[in-house]
């Protein structure tokens, strides 16, 4: 299926990249990096692209500035994607943390959303 991989550049999640590879099964992947500054977004996206290319995929990339949650939802809808994959973060104790972007996407996406815990 066609997958939007929402990548929090300030805390990139390698497990989310792997899950996107599983989900895509060779179909299209869009890497959408948000958070941090422009350089951090670019380097996080480049790293994810590298791993996706190793897995035989040819991802496209978007770097998202303001309102990344809304942009992720919009990209998935307008691009006809099937699923948004988001990385999770955890507290020191191991509790799952839902940040504002994750919460927005989970509550507002029309596609299915995979939150990698």
């Amino acid at each position, binding site marked *: 299926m066609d997958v939007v991989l929402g990548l929090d550049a300030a805390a990139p999640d390698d497990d989310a990249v792997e899950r996107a590879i599983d989900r895509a099964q060779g179909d299209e992947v869009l890497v959408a990096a948000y958070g941090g500054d422009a350089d951090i977004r670019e380097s996080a996206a480049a790293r994810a692209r590298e791993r996706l290319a190793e897995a035989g995929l040819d991802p496209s990339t978007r770097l998202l500035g303001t309102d990344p949650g809304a942009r992720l939802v919009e990209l998935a809808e307008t691009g006809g994607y099937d699923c948004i994959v988001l990385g999770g973060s*955890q*507290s*020191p*104790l*191991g*509790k*799952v*943390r*839902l*940040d*504002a972007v994750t*919460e927005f996407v989970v509550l507002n996406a029309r596609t299915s959303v995979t939150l990698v*815990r």
Partner: protein
Amino acid sequence: MIEYPADPVGGFPSPPRSIVDGEAREIRLRRLRADDRLAEMYAEFSPKDRAQGIPPASKTAIRSWLEKLRRPECLNLVAVHDALVGHAVLVPDGDGGFELGRKPPRCGKRSRRSTGIDRIWLTVEHWNDPALALYERVGFEPVDTEQFELTMALRLPDSGDPG
């Protein structure tokens, strides 16, 4: 970054060494020992007692989660009745504070003051009234209400015997 209350709590309840639960069972509270079988306790947890993604759902995930909690810099307390029945832990957050967690939610323990720990925080679901009531009773204050979960924190008194 946690915004702690400016003032320490006036007194912190000293935890009892043992309690009697609603079914008249005596439950002892003590430090976690190396041979305690925490993973087994968590493997039998009912899904309704999971919160905020813990305990993790699979045995493998439980084991790697507990490995992190059993590091020497964490403070682990268990409740025992024949077998382990409850667990509370303080985990350093790398920022000078400690995050508190306790399982199961019914577990009648209280966190204990320990040398060197003066700032404790936790997150709790907004709708978890019994947990909120307990945390408020021992002096935790809400410090971040904007997120999906509520963050509460307290500062312990500098010195003296707590509570």
